[in-house]
């Protein structure tokens, strides 16, 4: 009886594997298991290898699995690429037709099924994946009924005959396994049967936006962000909102600024290339103190980079990428689930701090399905809409015209003053990206400049949000600092490292990337060591920490930038080395394991003799 299992399927891209996996994951979720799914795919539509991995557990699973229990290989390439990751006693289930062979050194059981032949017999090539699902269900002890019910629900509109064919295909797959390998079941412990949700981060962001009062999205398609707009374009008609596909990201962000100026809660969603294009207008939002929310689903950079691969390398661009000094808030979710309240909160922060709020999502969060507890997305428990400082219409009416001080020194405790919105009588003002005085009029007076700059920047010092979240014992010997997708692996690694080393280990989740919560981090790290785990090449968050005054001496770093997810094992290894005093800077990935490296910060190592 396993409390968790890992199922993997690989084949050619564009052969319907996506939806096959969606079926599998949904049925497993409905059966009450926790799901953590991930995949490898390329920036092409058809052809090329793709593989999908689903980790199922009776308790929360939140990181890539250490190994695979059942690998379904639809081609030999899948075996070549994936078999090395299966457990020693795993099952590799392949199509008889491909004459599969296991690579040397892999001890798993290779079983073949005549998938192709069975599909041919059913007379519809789409049935192959259904046979696969049936067979997988049989091995893992998942309820065949669940699969069949799903098919009825989803494809019912295609006619009874079609659904019946699917059912048959599933049954045949199931029966074949039961008949041939009755003893080889990978029995998964029974689930609690609770009804949970399963979604990708982009869907969670869309839900969070809806709950957070967002009614407008202006965006331009890009991997891995597109599903946010694609979800909202379906939701918004129901609430009078609007989703506009703009001509580019420059237009998208500026339309958001316009909408924010008008008083709406508007957002855009993009990935690195789009973020780069938005730098100028993010400065406009900073200058005009206009609320706007941007989700950046980070992917391999720079330039086109690796559009379908994981990375967390836009942190510096999000916090500091625009010309000049302007306020921005950057949040990072630690799970799909967290994207719902965090996206909702982003709109509150934007309205309260009158500046752009960016959400540093990442490809794995954005695109991979994870279980979401229904309690976490109960409407009543999500952040209530808080519109921040808005002028009182009655007070405005009393003012008379042309004297509303939009950028008044009369600020709230956050350093933010009231804004008016078009339609409010006597609230007219000029919002300009040029430096301006209290009424918004262009003004380059030096003293005013200093006031305005301080006004804009200083509000960040007091942002009220849960900046960090700590998991572990107090006074830990080592605190793993993580955010985004990486958090799950860090959390899973924690207990393992404690067990392995006998040391106290904590995980500090960074929810607020910028302004950097240096004090909070220092507090939790205390006299221990900090290991910052991030998916980029130069240690962007560690750099931000150090730049913000954090003592570099006790800061260790684990980086991965090969496009794959950081694993529990990698964190465990790196943490152990830090605890043993063996390493400070480490990288992993690219086929090699965790290895020591030099400080990743890019500096000139030697400067030519300067003349004195």
């Amino acid at each position: 009886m396993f409390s968790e299992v890992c199922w993997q399927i690989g084949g050619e891209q564009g052969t319907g594997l996506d939806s096959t996996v969606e079926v599998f994951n949904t049925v497993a979720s409905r059966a009450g298991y926790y799901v953590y799914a991930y995949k490898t795919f390329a920036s092409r539509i058809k052809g090329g290898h793709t593989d999908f991995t689903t980790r199922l557990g009776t308790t929360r699973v939140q990181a890539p699995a250490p190994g695979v229990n059942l690998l379904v290989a639809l081609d030999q390439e899948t075996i070549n690429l994936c078999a090395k990751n299966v457990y020693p006693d795993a099952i590799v289930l392949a199509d008889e037709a491909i004459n599969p062979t296991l690579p040397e050194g892999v001890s798993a059981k290779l079983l073949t099924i005549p998938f192709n032949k069975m599909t041919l017999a059913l007379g519809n090539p789409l049935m192959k994946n259904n046979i696969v699902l049936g067979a997988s269900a049989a091995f893992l002890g998942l309820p065949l009924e669940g699969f069949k019910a799903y098919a009825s629900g989803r494809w019912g509109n295609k006619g009874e005959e079609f659904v019946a064919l699917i059912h048959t295909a599933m049954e045949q797959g199931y029966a074949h396994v039961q008949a041939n390998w009755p003893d080889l079941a990978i029995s998964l412990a029974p689930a609690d049967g609770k009804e949970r949700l399963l979604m990708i981060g982009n869907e969670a962001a869309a839900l969070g936006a809806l709950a957070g009062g967002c009614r407008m999205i202006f965006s331009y398609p890009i991997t891995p962000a597109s599903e946010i707009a694609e979800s909202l374009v379906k939701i918004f008609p129901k609430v009078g909102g609007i989703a506009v596909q703009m001509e580019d990201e420059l237009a998208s962000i500026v339309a958001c600024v316009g909408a924010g100026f008008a008083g709406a809660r508007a957002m855009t969603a993009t990935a690195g290339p789009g973020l780069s294009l938005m730098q100028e207008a993010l400065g406009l939002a900073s200058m005009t103190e206009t609320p706007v929310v941007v989700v950046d689903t980070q992917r391999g950079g720079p330039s086109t980079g690796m559009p379908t691969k994981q990375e967390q390398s836009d942190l510096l661009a999000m916090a500091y990428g625009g010309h000049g000094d302007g306020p921005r808030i950057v949040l990072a979710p630690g799970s799909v689930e967290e994207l719902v309240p965090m996206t909702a909160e982003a709109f509150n922060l934007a309205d309260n701090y009158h500046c752009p709020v960016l959400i540093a999502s990442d490809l794995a969060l954005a695109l991979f399905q994870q279980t979401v507890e229904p309690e976490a997305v109960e409407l009543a428990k999500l952040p209530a809409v808080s519109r921040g400082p808005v002028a009182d219409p009655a007070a405005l009416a009393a003012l008379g015209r042309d004297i509303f001080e939009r950028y008044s020194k009369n600020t709230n405790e956050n350093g933010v003053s009231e804004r008016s919105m078009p339609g409010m009588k006597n609230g007219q003002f000029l919002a300009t990206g040029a430096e301006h005085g209290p009424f918004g009029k262009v003004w380059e007076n030096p003293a005013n400049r200093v006031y305005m700059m301080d006004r804009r920047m200083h509000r960040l010092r007091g942002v009220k949000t849960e900046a960090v979240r700590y998991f572990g014992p107090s006074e830990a010997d080592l605190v793993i600092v993580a955010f985004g997708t990486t958090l799950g692996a860090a959390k899973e690694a924690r207990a393992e490292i404690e067990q392995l080393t006998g040391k106290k280990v904590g995980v500090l989740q960074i929810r607020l990337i910028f302004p950097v919560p240096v004090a909070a981090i220092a507090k939790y790290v205390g006299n221990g060591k900090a290991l910052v785990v991030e998916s980029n090449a130069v240690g962007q968050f560690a750099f931000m920490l150090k730049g913000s005054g954090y003592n570099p001496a006790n800061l260790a770093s684990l980086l991965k930038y090969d496009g794959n997810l950081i694993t529990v094992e990698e964190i465990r290894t790196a943490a152990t080395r830090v605890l043993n005093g063996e390493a400070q800077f480490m990288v992993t990935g690219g086929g090699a394991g965790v290895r020591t490296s030099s400080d990743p910060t890019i500096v000139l190592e030697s400067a030519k003799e300067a003349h004195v």
Partner: protein
Amino acid sequence: MATMADFRTSEKSWWCPGCGDFGVLAGLQKALVELGIEPQQVALASGIGCSGKIGNYINSYNLHVVHGRSLPAAQGIKLANRELTVIAAGGDGDGFAIGMGHYMHALRRNVDITYIVMDNQIYGLTKGQTSPTSDGGFQTKSTPNGNIEKSVNQMQLAIASGCGFVANGFSANQKQLVEIIKRALQFPGFALVNTYSPCVTFNKLNTFDFYKQEIVNLDEDPTYDRSDRFAAMKKLMETNELVTGIIYEDPNPTRYEDKVSGYREQGIVNQSLEVDPVLWAKILGQYK
């Protein structure tokens, strides 16, 4: 009802004495007054340039954005609150160089805004470089040997892109300009109001006198049928766009807002942000 004074600000204008933009500003203010629109109902998004400063001098809700992006801003405002009168404004460089992509897309998207271009055929604020509407051969700081690029024909592009309202005004012809802007503001859908608004400091070619001499005034041609797209195109070609008046007005206008599914008559900003728990449960159901 609002008066001209209500639409003025306490800010002294930063334009050069005699700049064409004064006339455009006045024309806009007058049009708003005559239509009985209140300042708080007006939102104006402007770009960067001498022209883009127009928002500094009109008492309305003004968003002075980055160079070239007045149109996305104006569309964002309008779609957020369709109850407002929304205007985009800026120069020829702002609109047709860096802003060209947005212009072409605003034309086809057809959100109900009015776009006022102050075309002086030069970059004013950066002190006299060639603009996309500069004439061939024009010598400027950036083309000391004369402009070698074909100039943009923004009105023809508007017609070609299916724009429902295409007009051209002249800063010195207030009467016509006011009428044009009034009509544009009332037009349901994207309305282009190009204006010739001479830069008296840097453009010594396309001066007030030049325009006075060259311009064909459509108001003086009672036979002109402004509902005929092909005639409009022909007129623009014949006159090399040196023509003023309402050049084309779609007799059966439509607008983007009316085609958006689920979009309501009330401005988004005036609707509740609460989510109906039943709807929420229904949406969550999709993820079960």
